[in-house]
C-alpha cells in the first residue's frame, strides 16, 4: 500500500516538474497583466505566451503539450476579457505551425531561431488581426497588433534564454531530439 502511495506521489511530483514551462508561462502571463503602465501605455506588453509556445514547440513539445497551450490561451481569454476560445485558437494554431517547422528550426543558431520566431510572430499577428476582424465584423486597427509583435520579437532572446535555463533542468539536449 505504502509503495503505491510512494509511486503516486513520485508520479505527481514528476508531472508538476514537467509542468514547469506551463506554470512559468502562467506566472509570466499574470505578471504581464500587472498595472505597470510602462511607457505611459503607448508600448504594449510583449506576448510572452506566444514566445513560450514557439520556444517549447521547437525545443521540447513534450513539456508544453497541446492541452497546456489550450490552458494558456483560455487563461488569457479569461484574464483579458477576450472572447472565450480566441487566444486558445490563435496559440494552438501558432503551436501547430511552429511544430511543423520544428525540424527546420531545431539546432539553428540563436539568430536563426530568432528569425523563426519573428516570422511566427508576424504571421500570428496577421492571423489575430483577421480572426479579430472577422469576430467583431469590423476592421481592427492593425498597428497596435503589429507593435505588440515587434515588442515580442525584441524581447524574445531574453525569454528564450530563461526557458533554455529551465529546459536544462528538464532534459538533456540528446533526449529532446
Amino acid at each position, binding site marked *: 500500500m505504502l509503495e503505491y502511495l510512494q509511486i503516486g506521489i513520485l508520479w505527481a511530483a514528476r508531472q508538476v516538474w*514537467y509542468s514547469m514551462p506551463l506554470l512559468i508561462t502562467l506566472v509570466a502571463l*499574470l*505578471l504581464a*497583466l*500587472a*498595472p*505597470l*503602465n*510602462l511607457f*505611459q*501605455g*503607448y508600448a*504594449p*506588453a510583449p506576448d510572452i505566451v506566444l514566445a513560450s509556445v514557439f520556444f517549447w514547440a521547437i525545443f*521540447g*513539445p*513534450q*513539456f508544453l*503539450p*497541446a*492541452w*497546456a*497551450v*489550450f490552458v494558456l*490561451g*483560455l487563461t488569457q481569454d*479569461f*484574464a*483579458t*476579457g*477576450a*472572447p*472565450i*476560445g*480566441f487566444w*486558445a*485558437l490563435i496559440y*494552438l*494554431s501558432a*503551436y*501547430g505551425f511552429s*511544430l511543423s517547422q520544428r525540424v527546420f528550426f531545431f539546432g539553428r543558431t540563436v539568430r536563426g531561431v530568432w528569425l523563426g520566431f519573428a516570422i511566427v510572430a508576424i504571421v500570428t499577428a496577421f492571423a*489575430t488581426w483577421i480572426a*479579430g476582424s472577422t*469576430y*467583431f465584423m*469590423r476592421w*481592427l*486597427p492593425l*498597428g*497596435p*497588433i503589429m*507593435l*505588440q509583435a515587434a515588442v515580442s520579437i525584441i524581447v524574445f532572446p531574453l525569454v528564450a534564454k530563461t526557458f533554455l535555463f529551465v529546459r536544462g533542468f*528538464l*532534459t538533456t539536449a*540528446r*533526449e*529532446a*531530439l
Partner: protein
Amino acid sequence: MAWDRKRRRGFDSGPLGFITRNLSIAFLVVVAFVALVVARAQDGIFDGVRETVTDATAPVMEVVAVPASEFKRWSDGVSSFFSVYEENQRLREENARLQTNLTELAELQRKTRRYEELLKVRPDDAITFVAARVIADATGPFVRTVLVNAGREQGLAKGQAVVDERGLLGRVITAGNRSARILLLTDLNSRIPVLIEGSNLKAIMVGDNTSSPVLEYLPPGSRITAGARIVTTPDGGVFPPGIAVGKVSDSKSPRVELFTGEARADFVRILKYMPSVDVDQAPPEPLPGAIAPKEGAATGAPTQPAAATPTTPKTTPVAALLPG
C-alpha cells in the same frame, strides 16, 4: 535511437507521441473554435464562468499589483527627479491660476444656486461611489479592459460608470463578488452617448482600439470645433449627465482626445448610478406610431439590480466628483 526513445521524458513522449500530439492539437482547435462560435452567437453566455474565474484569480492579481504599483511609483519618482525644477515652476503657475478660478467658481456656484431656486429647478441626484484599486490592466492591442478589486459585495453592477480624477474611464461589464471588469472607452465594444458642449450636439462615442475614440451618429451637416469639451449625457439612462470625457481632437475625422489618456490611475471610482436599462439587453426604440406596451407589462428590459449596501458609501454630486 532506441535508447533515446526509452529515455525521453515529458507528457506525450511515447512512440505514439507524434500522432497523439497532432490529434490533440486538431481536437483542441475544434473545441476552441466551437467556444468562439458559441460566444459569438450567444453574447454573455460565458459571463458567469468569467466572473467566477476572475473572482478566483483576483487575490493573486491583487498581490501582483502591489509590487507593480510600488515599482511604478519608484520609476515615476526617478523620471520626475530630473524635471523637478520645471515641474515646481509649472505647479506654482497652475496654482496661482487655479486660485483665481476658485474664486470665480464660488461666485458662479452661488449664482447658479440662486437661479435654480428662482426657477424651482430640481437639483441633480446625489451619487454615491466606491473607490477601488486597479489590479490588472489587460490593455493589449485587441482588448481594452481593466480589473478592479471591488464587486457585487461592494454594490457594483453591470453598466455603472467608472471615473478617475481626470474624467470618465469606462463602464463595468462584468461584476463578480469581489472583482469587476471595466470596459475602457477605447475598447472596440465601447459605445457611449455624449454631448459636445458649446454646440449642444449629441453623438455616440465609439471605441476602435486606438487611443482616440470616434464620434458617430452626428446630425448630418453638423460642424464641430476642435477643442470642444465632451461630456456624458443621460440619454439611454446609462450614465449620469455631465461627466467629463474629453475634447474634440484636431484631426480631420471627428475623434475624441480623452482626458484620461493612455496612462492609467492606480485607483478608480465606480459611480453607483443605477442605469435605468441594461445596456446590452435594452429593447429597441419603438417606431413612430407604434403602440406602446401596457404599463407593467413585460418589456424585455431586466429589473434594476438590487443595490447592495456599500461598505463605505460617500455621497457627492457628480459635478463635484470631476474637475474635467
